[in-house]
């Protein structure tokens, strides 16, 4: 295994873009990542694409070569990875492994989703496809309802409150308001976050991430060649992926994600660091409760304390452990297949000290955590300055 660096990163803004299609979004992000790495398509030896439901959202299949050729790459392996909301995290993990194993020196990982061309009920139906179609989906479970059931049980077992959930939403909106690429650049009060339209009780509109269009891309490179491409390469210190049951009712305890704990264990081990060493993180807040469970499973706080820690301000930009300084999925937006790589772009931006008003004081070691479904796939990545 050799060291691997991120030498280029690029994203589209996230939002609803009627004039953009799945491919044009991915091409925009990929082109930015190449420019950021001071290189062109000829340097790329393999293309890894994360996408959850392009075929259902847009009727287009065979997405990876459809996109890579539009970026000017031909004659290289171009492959799509699908792992629900962890699709591009999974693509990143596999790309890392190939560079680390000395199969390639330079590869691109992109993630993309185009969701806003469908009405909300249809989007809800497509997203439910990340659950178990033979059991929970058959009954009428939606994605929000699965996380609502996690929230109910977390409240029951640990005393997490409705206010705690609202504090996560308000904090992420506060951060997203400062992010020029965020979909919802609007601060909200705790009271607003408490009183949104109900979606799946106890979750309301403000507990749920957004329906978004967007793409993100990074160029990965063997560490010994990093300086050819960047003056500020970022080292992938550790990365791991793990899996678990797709159906929520198969899990013994739904207030924790075993795949997240396994991926965290792997990433910490590879990086040779522990939870306390991580200075900031981008966590997968598809729903407010998911951020709370993730900070517990990553060992940032004790089990059951995530809600209290959030409510006390521990995860704000000036807090002990800043989480989602980008605004998170909640405010930045959640184009499902783009999210994993977008989180990595956000961590890279902090490490390079390019986050503008959102720049954190401590920014030498960051973590990104990408969750698929109700915990069936998880990827944890630890990044540091090279």
């Amino acid at each position, binding site marked *: 295994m050799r060291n691997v660096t991120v030498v280029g990163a690029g994203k589209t803004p996230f939002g609803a873009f009627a004039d953009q299609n799945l491919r044009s979004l991915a091409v925009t992000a990929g082109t930015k990542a190449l420019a950021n790495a001071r290189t062109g398509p000829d340097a790329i030896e393999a293309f890894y694409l994360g996408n959850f439901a392009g075929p259902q959202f847009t009727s287009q299949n065979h997405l990876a070569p459809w996109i890579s050729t539009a970026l000017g790459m031909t004659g290289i392996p171009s492959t799509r990875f699908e792992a629900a909301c962890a699709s591009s995290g999974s693509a990143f993990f596999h790309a890392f492994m190939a560079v680390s194993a000395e199969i390639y020196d330079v590869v691109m990982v992109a993630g993309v989703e185009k969701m806003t061309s469908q009405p909300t009920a249809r989007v809800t*139906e497509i997203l439910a496809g990340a659950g178990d179609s033979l059991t929970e989906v058959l*009954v*009428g479970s*939606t994605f929000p309802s699965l996380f609502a*059931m996690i929230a*109910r049980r977390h409240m029951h077992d640990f005393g997490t409150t409705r206010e705690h959930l609202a504090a996560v939403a308000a904090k992420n909106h506060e951060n997203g308001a400062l992010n020029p690429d965020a979909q919802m650049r609007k601060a909200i009060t705790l009271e607003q976050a408490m009183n949104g339209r*109900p979606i799946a009780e106890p979750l309301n509109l403000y507990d749920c991430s957004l329906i978004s269009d967007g793409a993100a891309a990074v160029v990965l490179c063997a560490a010994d060649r990093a300086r050819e491409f960047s003056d500020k390469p970022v080292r992938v210190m550790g990365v791991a992926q793990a899996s678990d049951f797709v159906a929520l*009712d*198969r899990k013994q305890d739904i207030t924790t994600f075993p795949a997240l704990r396994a991926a965290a264990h792997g990433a910490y081990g590879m990086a040779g660091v522990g939870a306390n060493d991580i200075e900031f993180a981008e966590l997968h807040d598809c729903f407010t409760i998911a951020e709370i469970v993730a900070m517990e499973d990553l060992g940032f706080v004790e089990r059951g304390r995530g809600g209290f820690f959030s409510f006390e301000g521990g995860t704000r930009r000036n807090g002990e452990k800043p989480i989602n300084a980008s605004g998170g999925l909640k405010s930045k937006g959640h184009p499902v297949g783009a999210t994993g790589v977008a989180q990595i772009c956000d961590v890279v931006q902090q490490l390079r000290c390019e986050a503008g008003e959102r720049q954190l004081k401590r920014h030498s070691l960051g973590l990104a955590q990408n969750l698929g479904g109700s915990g069936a796939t998880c990827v944890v990545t630890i990044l540091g300055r090279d």
Partner: protein
Amino acid sequence: MGVNKIRTGTVYTETVVHLAPERFAGNVPYQVIIVSLDEAGGRITARVEGERVAIDDRVVETESLNGIPTFRKS
């Protein structure tokens, strides 16, 4: 599916769905639960008929609607 034994259990968690997928859009709001079953062991996801239930409530299976496992408070 073998003998149609009436299943009983305890509510492990619950939610009330207000925003449904297309095919269930006409049913909202409806309650979905995960039930810890008394016998077979294990858990299943099910709908609730009638009165709303809470965690730790006892429930009993009713006739399933269109193959959807359905329980009510016992």
